[in-house]
């Protein structure tokens, strides 16, 4: 973009951005400093931001007492599988919903709506019964399938919005060049959808990584616990929280999603650049 921005405006932009980041990011910082505090520092009436006597005990406790590492491995498997499956299934469907007017299409839109509107908490029991019929209770694949279906409405809704924002002329131009529909899809549409696909992957990964309630009812064996279940065990009766290990565990649990995003966010730009060049 070669429109020039005045320096004063730039400064304001940086200030505004800093404001946003403080609002959005300070809990993470707080969690980090909390994770290094000992039990006595955690109950001070006026706690300092920087730990006075930093300790690694909380991290040790988080890993040794509750098996956080093993839960993280479970969560990673489930989240990656859920994210990949969601994208694979929703991409073609979203294209179909955006580009063709079929009866199934309007049914699908109706379903997307109702599934988001109906209180999920009331679906837990019927869903549990179906999973049980399929012997998928207490299995990670069962959880993956639930997460895929759970992410699909948003994935479809979002992706078809992106498909719609791609000018039809681009596809039609490619088609008149003699490209087949599939070639058009792959060469023209998919690159332009890259930002949408990245956002969808991220969305399904993060929602699977963080989901609590389905995991709670579907999984039984402690060996299959996902991270949120394990973290919840740092909270006891009557709101008593084992804050130190919880903060340590929660900080570590937040990192993978942030790292995935840190890597993928560049794709948001490069995807669209590639699309523009090819178009």
């Amino acid at each position, binding site marked *: 973009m070669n*429109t020039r921005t005045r320096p004063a405006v730039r400064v304001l932009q940086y200030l505004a*951005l800093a404001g*946003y980041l403080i609002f*959005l*990011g300070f*809990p*993470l910082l*707080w*969690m980090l400093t909390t994770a290094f505090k000992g039990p006595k520092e955690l109950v001070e*009436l*006026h*706690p300092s931001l920087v730990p006075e006597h930093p300790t690694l005990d909380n991290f040790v406790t988080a890993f040794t007492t509750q098996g956080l590492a093993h839960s993280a491995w479970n969560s990673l498997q489930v989240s990656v599988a859920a994210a990949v499956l969601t994208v*694979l*299934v929703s*991409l*073609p*469907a979203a294209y179909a919903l955006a580009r*063709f*007017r*079929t009866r199934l299409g309007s049914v*699908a839109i109706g379903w997307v709506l*109702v*599934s*988001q*509107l*109906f*209180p*999920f*908490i*009331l679906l837990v*029991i*019927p*869903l549990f019964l*179906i999973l049980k019929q399929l012997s998928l209770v207490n299995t990670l694949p069962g959880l993956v399938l*639930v997460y895929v*279906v759970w992410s*699909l409405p948003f994935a479809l*809704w*979002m992706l078809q*919005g*992106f498909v719609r*924002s791609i000018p039809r002329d681009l596809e*039609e131009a490619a*088609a008149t060049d*003699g490209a087949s*529909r*599939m070639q058009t*899809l792959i060469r023209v549409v*998919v690159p332009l959808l890259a930002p949408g696909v990245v956002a969808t992957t991220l969305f399904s990964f*993060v929602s699977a990584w963080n989901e609590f309630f389905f995991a709670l009812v579907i999984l039984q064996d402690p060996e299959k616990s996902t991270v949120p279940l394990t973290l*919840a065990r740092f909270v006891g009766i009557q709101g008593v929280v084992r804050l130190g290990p*919880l903060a340590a565990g*929660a900080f570590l*649990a*937040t990192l993978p999603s*942030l790292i995935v*995003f840190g890597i993928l*966010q560049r794709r*948001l730009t490069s995807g*669209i650049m590639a699309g523009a060049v090819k178009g």
Partner: protein
Amino acid sequence: MAIITDAPARPTQAPPGTRRRGNGYAYLLLLPALLPVVLFSVIPLLNGIYLGFTDSRAGFNQTTHVTGFANYAKLLHDSLFWSSFKIGLIWAFGVTFIQFFLALGLASLLNQPLRMRWLARTLALVPWAMPPVIVGIMWRLIYQPDAGLLSNLLYKLGLGEHSVNWLGDLSTALPAVIVVGVWAGMPQTTVVLLAGLQGVPAELHEAAAVDGANAWRRFRSVTLPALRPVIVAITSLDFIWNFNSFGLVYVLTDGGPAGKTTLPMLFAYQQAFQYGHFGYAAALGNAMVLIIVALLAVYLRRRMREATQ
């Protein structure tokens, strides 16, 4: 990507836009999504909708009778339902509205060629990356009257020892949870809007700039129209999500104090899980679906019209 490359190329394919052949393709593309959706979403949904017309209750070997609209007649006179509905509307409108404008501002900033943009983009995602279980607990600690972060900020700014119980006070509880709601949903909205902004072709901007349009005019005449489908999609989804929000407020206040933050879904949860009134809770779910669809109707009609253009 394997799915698509797997399919055979057909050189003689008709161009997009022809209806009859297109439909076949559409079904083909929709099918992979269909199987899991029917099994794990449609069936439980139909089951849930059906329960709303029965007297289903939790219980061993309990028999269920179809009661037609009895649940709905009861709902009409349930003052707790109406109060939760009102709170739900305040919450959903408040959160969605604030969230959208804040997120649009942030997305525009993140779309500027600022230094360290990658870091800012990553940090903007913190609320999303944090497990919701933790989010609730953490904000509870931030709002805590004595040792909480907020009270301490006031204390360290020299404003004295404030024991405001943000989540426990009848007047501050709802605003306090709305702030958390906005915080928690910001990243999702921002990411979608940012991706939408990047979908706005740069040439359009340049053309407008050559024509002498200033930044605000370019935003109004170029960016906003191009962004509209994404805006419509994300705000409707945000509204629905917020209206249906459950976990966050459950952990923060559990509907208290004095029911001031009892959202409709919290009410439904209490009916189903705490008292075992499955039928009544499902009826409430059905009523919610209808009411929200009606509220969104105007919005959606506009969307449908765009879709047919």
